[in-house]
């Protein structure tokens, strides 16, 4: 049953925003979650088939935490949405929505990027 559900999720994802990026099932991520982070971009890999990004978030107690978005939209897809490489260059402050990996809660799928001017680039809602 679980496998069927995962298959259905994969099929749904395939028909949503990521048909080409759906190299794999994305079942490794808990896509039901939408965890919002805000921080400063540390590294960006704007590439295909999946972009990647690390974000340094400052916690309320002043400690810093690096959020590792290991996969996201294909670079070509997200720039066609209007995102410019400089929008997410190291040093830029952004918000990012992530879904954690089931086997590694420190790794996330990058579901959306929100720029300081409010523009939102969603890969999966």
């Amino acid at each position, binding site marked *: 049953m679980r496998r069927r559900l*995962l*298959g259905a999720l*994969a099929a749904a994802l395939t028909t949503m925003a990521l*048909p*080409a990026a759906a*190299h*794999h*099932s994305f*079942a*490794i991520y808990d896509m039901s979650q939408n965890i919002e982070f805000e921080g400063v971009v540390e590294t960006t*890999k704007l*590439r*295909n*088939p*999946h972009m*990647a990004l690390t974000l340094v978030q400052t916690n309320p107690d002043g400690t810093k935490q690096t959020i590792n978005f290991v996969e996201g939209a*294909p670079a*070509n*897809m997200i*720039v*066609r949405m209007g995102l410019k490489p400089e929008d997410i260059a190291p040093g830029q402050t952004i918000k990012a929505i992530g879904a954690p990996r089931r086997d590694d809660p420190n790794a996330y799928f990058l579901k959306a990027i929100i720029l300081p001017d409010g523009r939102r680039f969603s890969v999966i809602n």
Partner: protein
Amino acid sequence: MIRLVVTGIAIAMAFATAISIPNLALAQSSGGGTHPDFSGLWFPGGGRSQTPQQAPYTDAAKALLADYEKSFTLDDDPGRYCIWPGMPRAVWGAPFTVEIQQRPQDLTIFWEGYGMYRKIYMADHNPPEPILPSAMGHSVAHWEGDALVVETTSLKPYPYMTRMATSSDAHVVERLHLEQRDVNGQPTKFLVNEVVLTDPKVYKEPIRIMATLQLRPDLQLLEYTCSDTLWDEYLNERGLTLPDMDALPDPEG
């Protein structure tokens, strides 16, 4: 944008009497005749269908599928390792730009996704013989009215059972034609491809797929290098860090 609108209006006016004609032919000189010109930038859109919807596997292929599903998951995807989907899968594939360049002697198709490339030779222009089975195979075409009929053979096996697997015996016939459809009040060109996949070792009957591309001259074909992630993984395994070229200081003066 204004230019696009003006161009659209011009096209609409020029072909006002032709809109009711299903196969809108834009004349191009080719071997003394006039044929539709498929050249341009395209993007998947306009629908896709498949008959039968469930792959009609032969009994032997069903057994292969059962074995495959015992071992392979959806994550075991060749695309993740930059293996081209090839023909016929490329036809309905990824949501990325497709560029077609048409000459009297051949058509060249560039798919942004996976950086795929394909050549279709015209039968009446002395096409070469296939010399090596490949993901895209060897394609030779001829015109039947306004439809380009393309036959593809010499395909290497694609043994991924849940992704429309094919054997070396696979034979693909495509019929491509142009249609003009209304998009937000603008007449817009679509390239309709009716694909028939025949592979008797794998499928009991031919599979028919209709895939459509929409003309999108506003797009550009971007580079799509698929292997960067794999290279990064190799560097990590080796403990290597590449130099940061952009961190070099600007030249003085």
